[in-house]
């Protein structure tokens, strides 16, 4: 009789223990501030691709209007680039204003950068000097001149703002993984 009571008591304790174990939920780790655990650095996150033409014109006076008239297009240099845009050395720990992304606001996130440029073709025509066309984006003092030229072109063509908006949206999607 005593044995049976002990066994029943033990069973009840075990059942209660099992019930507690099964229903206890570990609180999910949530981060609302900018201090996140460093998990793994992503070397490069490409968020956009652009196929960008850079055209430089050689202007001058028309044959029939050598002494007057506006400068007309007498030649051009057309260089074509494949451009990769995104974020590099991305470690979530170092991004500021991450907390705002959790509220659905991505405007304060950093702008993407031009990560890679690959010139795929170039064409010089008319009065434009071939050598000058080839040297158009020659690096000066180690600075990546092509990145500067392409960024300026994308801004002039009203493309940079939409690229920035899309990239920030993509980045905020990654950050939101760690939001409540």
């Amino acid at each position: 009789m005593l044995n049976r009571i002990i066994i029943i008591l033990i069973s009840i304790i075990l059942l209660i223990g099992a019930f507690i174990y099964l229903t206890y939920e570990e609180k999910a780790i949530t981060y609302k501030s900018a201090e996140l655990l460093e998990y793994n650095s992503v070397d490069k996150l490409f968020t956009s691709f652009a196929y960008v033409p850079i055209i430089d014109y050689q202007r001058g006076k028309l044959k029939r209007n050598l002494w007057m008239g506006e400068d007309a297009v007498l030649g051009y240099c057309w260089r074509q680039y494949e451009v990769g845009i995104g974020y590099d050395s991305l470690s979530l720990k170092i991004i500021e204003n991450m907390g705002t992304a959790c509220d659905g606001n991505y405007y304060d996130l950093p702008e993407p950068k031009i990560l890679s440029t690959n010139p795929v073709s170039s064409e010089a025509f008319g009065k434009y000097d071939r050598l000058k066309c080839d040297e158009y984006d020659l690096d000066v003092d180690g600075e990546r001149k092509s990145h500067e030229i392409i960024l300026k072109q994308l801004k002039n063509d009203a493309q940079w703002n939409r690229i920035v908006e899309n990239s920030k949206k993509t980045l905020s999607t990654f950050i939101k993984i760690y939001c409540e």
Partner: protein
Amino acid sequence: MNKFVKHTVLTILIFSAIGCSESNIELERNLEIKIKEDGAALAQLEAVYGVVFTNQKENWVSSDDIYIRKDMANVYYGYGLEEAKISVVDEDDIKVLKVILPAPKQISVDRKTVSVESTHEDYNPRGPNGEMLNVDLEMNKKLEEISAKYSAKTIEMTKNITKKYFETLAFRFDLKLDITFEK
């Protein structure tokens, strides 16, 4: 007594089994909600293509004619997240996040002219046989060529971003990832 102990152990095991699969279902539901709310930005990638058309004509007396037109096209690639299949399963004591996504595809194209330069204002671009050219048609043809050339690359980029997203998500919830893109 033995029978009683066996029954108790069996009951506990059954409860444990039900408990485990219930927690998988709840995790699945939470992840699905999170992905559909937050992952919408990943379902679409925009590529920017600059299209250039040039035409030249040599002239004896006046300056040679040069005509250059540049258009910018925004091409959208993506897939519908509502078609994504998400599940959490147990494999050898490890929880695995299984994701099956449809293949990304081109959704739409938006092209507009950015600049036109011409040596003489009244010059009309002509073909090799002297026929007048439809410049818009030529721009469309060039855009199709560029799109065809780069669609594989851009689709690959879309897949990579999506894969990185699910890797990060799996890491956050302590899951292993198994992701497939349907063809």
